[in-house]
């Protein structure tokens, strides 16, 4: 029996780049094939070719052994190929049913929409694959994980047999990731075939049947989770040895840099989102804030950086009360910030690298005399930082939106780390980045700590928190449930606390560490 999908010799050139170089891939019926590769390796280009968004320069596509010509998404859907994009293609104000039937409308005689029939079909699909989606919900009210399932239903509704998932876990919480994997397993059980695009090693090991690794547009290896190890996969993916565990000396504690005292923050609807949070952060240590997305971390960071005025409580940076200070005053006190959403909050995508690198220092010498900008100094600074932080770009005048995610993040890091700072607040500093960039950013953060900088690391990636932090605070429903020494707790214990289970098993241990902390 021929494979359900076969790509032979797919080649795609963009000006100056060979995005896909004679790629051969087979997908058997009923399997999950993971396509593993760094950002920019050519995974997405390949899938866009398969989905008819790009036309390959060379190569052939076979479905069930028959050659097919795919020149538009409509052809792809007709051939039974469906794609869940990294960024969902949903209309927020429509219901699930309306979103699903869009483009594939059921009608009653006379051209009227038959929502009920569509809704029944969705219920049936949801039942079969255990998706738990209610067809009458408005999409904008659904959490991200459910929105993704709506996307999956869209494909099933169109009778897709081959499902392409483009970085499906990038937007999910750890729990949602587990649920997604269960759904994927259910789907293959029922005879669907899945191509799973990712750069996350752990996920590949957990859910794939087979793994194909792509690097610089070429397939560089094929393996299975049973044969592979994360280290081996990382090496294949990056093309050199990678340290998955960042080395870190014990920290050298210094004076208190940040004090947060009984901080409360309320949201637009006056709901308490940060609830009575108290902690201290010293120079030379990394305090990790763990927690499932949406438990007040975002608001905590917004309050600490001056973007949101706290409802009550105090924030003290270097002995100055900044609870009601502007973002400008806080950065001027020596606080740096890597925002959670780099494209929205950290960069001006349509501006040059040079301008982005002085986004919060442009009013200082030597970049200006307060009124007139000094182009030469700004460009010189950019050239120096591009070199020093290894930002891969054709030039300093290049617009930031044409850089890869990892290089965009390097621009932010270069900007924040190149000024004298005492406090670093890093929110999701490696979200959506490839292994190489993650390694780089982690080592830079530890370097800053070793220089005596106080680091507050907010991340939903437990691995990241465990690797970098000296102490770990867990946030749940706006409260800090506990603060523990990083080496005194296991990942499983943290996972339980994050889920809101009161730590009973190790209560004693935690109390001990807290007691130790009070002494130190």
């Amino acid at each position, binding site marked *: 029996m021929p494979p359900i999908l076969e790509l032979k010799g797919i080649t795609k050139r963009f000006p100056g780049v060979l995005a896909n170089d004679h790629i051969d891939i087979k997908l058997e019926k009923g399997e999950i094939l993971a396509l593993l590769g760094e950002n920019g390796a050519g995974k997405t280009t390949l899938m866009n070719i398969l989905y008819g968004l790009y036309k390959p320069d060379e190569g052939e596509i076979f479905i069930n052994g028959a050659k097919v010509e795919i020149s538009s998404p409509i052809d792809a859907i007709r051939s039974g190929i469906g794609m869940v994009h990294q*960024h969902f293609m949903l209309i927020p104000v429509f219901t699930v049913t309306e979103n699903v039937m869009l483009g594939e409308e059921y009608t009653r005689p006379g051209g009227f929409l038959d929502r009920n029939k569509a809704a029944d079909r969705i219920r049936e699909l949801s039942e079969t694959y255990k998706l738990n989606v209610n067809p009458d919900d408005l999409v904008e009210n659904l959490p991200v994980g459910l929105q993704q399932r709506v996307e999956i239903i869209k494909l099933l509704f169109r009778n897709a047999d081959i499902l392409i998932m483009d970085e499906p876990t990038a937007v999910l919480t750890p729990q949602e990731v587990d649920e997604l994997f269960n759904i994927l397993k259910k789907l293959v059980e029922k005879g669907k075939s899945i191509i799973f695009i990712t750069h996350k090693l752990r996920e590949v090991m957990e859910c794939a049947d087979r793994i194909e690794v792509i690097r610089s547009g070429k397939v560089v290896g094929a393996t299975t989770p049973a044969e592979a190890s994360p280290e081996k996969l990382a090496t294949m993916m990056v093309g050199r040895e990678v340290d998955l565990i960042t080395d870190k000396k014990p920290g050298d504690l210094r004076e208190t840099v940040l004090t947060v005292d009984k901080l409360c923050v309320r949201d637009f609807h006056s709901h308490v989102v940060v609830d009575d949070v108290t902690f201290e952060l010293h120079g030379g240590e990394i305090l990790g804030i763990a927690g499932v997305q949406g438990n007040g971390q975002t608001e905590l960071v917004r309050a600490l950086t001056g973007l949101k005025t706290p409802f009550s409580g105090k924030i003290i940076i270097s002995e100055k009360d900044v609870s009601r200070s502007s973002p400008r005053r806080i950065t001027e006190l020596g606080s740096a*910030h890597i925002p959670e959403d780099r494209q*929205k909050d950290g960069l*001006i995508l349509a501006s040059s690298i040079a301008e982005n690198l002085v*986004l919060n220092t442009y009013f200082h010498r030597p970049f200006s005399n307060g009124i*007139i900008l000094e182009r030469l100094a700004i460009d010189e600074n950019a050239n120096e930082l591009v070199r020093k932080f290894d930002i891969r770009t054709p030039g300093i005048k290049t617009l930031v939106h044409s850089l890869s995610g990892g290089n965009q993040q390097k621009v932010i890091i270069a900007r924040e780390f190149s000024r004298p700072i005492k406090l670093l607040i890093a929110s999701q500093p490696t979200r959506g980045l490839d292994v190489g960039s993650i390694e780089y950013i982690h080592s830079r953060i530890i370097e800053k700590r070793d220089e005596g900088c106080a680091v507050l690391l907010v991340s939903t990636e437990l691995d990241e928190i465990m690797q970098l932090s000296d102490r770990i605070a867990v946030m749940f429903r706006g409260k800090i449930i506990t603060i523990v020494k990083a080496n005194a707790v296991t990942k499983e214990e943290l996972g339980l606390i994050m889920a809101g289970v009161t730590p009973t098993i190790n209560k004693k241990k935690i109390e001990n560490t807290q007691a130790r902390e009070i002494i130190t």
Partner: protein
Amino acid sequence: MKNKKNSDDKRNFISIFYEELSNSSLTIIILSIISGFIMGGILVILTSPEVYKAFGTSFLSGISTSWKIVANTYSSLFLGALGDPAKIGAAIQSGDSALIQKAFTPFLESLVVTTPYLFTGVAVALGFRAGLFNIGAEGQVLVGAIAAGWAGWTFTGLSPWIHVPLAMLVGALAGGLWGFVPGFLKVRTGAHEVITTIMMNYVAYYLIYYLISSPLRDPNEVTPKTPWILDSAHLYRFFPEPIRFHLGFFIAIAVAILVWFILFKTTWGFEIRSVGLNPNASKYAGMNITLVTVAAMALSGAIAGMAGASEILGVTWRQSQALASGYGFDSIALALLAQNHPLGVILTALLFGLLRSGSRVMQLRAGTPIYIINILQSFIILFIAAPAIIRTIYRLKKQSVKEVSTSTISFSAKK
């Protein structure tokens, strides 16, 4: 939260539109202008009864009549805008300064029409740079004019050196106030400036209608008109009557250069551009986006107000009921055509000024209605806003690299 998301989406629509415009290269702009003229020509042919008559007799005479009509239309437009090259040549040879002035009159008159376009074009471009869609230039022009006029006839016994700047300043302040209000409403209440500036236009229309029909009316006039401004408030005219070319043109050029300098060479301009491109990141970087928004809107209004001031102080010398200028609305198109670059506005304002000024002669000589110019301008903007049309017609190759990068933009916009 929901409201915030919606307003983000609206911004995205405008920013996507703007992005399309600014991505278009110079080739596309030039081809759009040429295509605009071609479409205008086709329209002239289609609306001329003579053409149909000629086609009735023979195909050949139909073609030749069409050609004649288009040629006549555009040559009249050209003569009206720039003057008659033959006459100019002859006048220069004769060396008679009166003749030379006469020969250059059409061109100088075009510059008179260009002047308000310069101010309003720069005003709208500045707004766009700050992420603000100032549709209120029309109203800002009107209040600027009446305020400058009031200063022009009220203060007596001043030297022109004081009176002219004073009247210009009063006009700019009035326009600035008209821009400040929408800016203030935007940052305080979230009211979208597109809506509020349109509303402010109506307020301006009827306020001025009221002012010139009663409190500021010249009692000696039958129809509602303001008094004449004093001689000391006249903007200097470089040539004797009837040439109206005045100092305002150079003030407008200076303003364009000044705004360019502010936008690209100063910290304040850096803030304006940053806020316009990404208010979130600007706020993170510690910029005061409230202040930047309000100030940019007020400054935009002030510059539009100067357009009105320069019209009343340099050209009309009084305000009558003939109010609707259209400058404010045309300026949106010409700012977009200039890709919101203040120096580019100098070129596009000149283009619009020449078209508007030449169209009067065109109507007289060729009998083609003035409105054809509006259609022509609309086509140019349409082509620039939809570059795919131009790319297809002229078989321009779209760069694939750009294709990739624009898709990333749309992804990030969706987020």
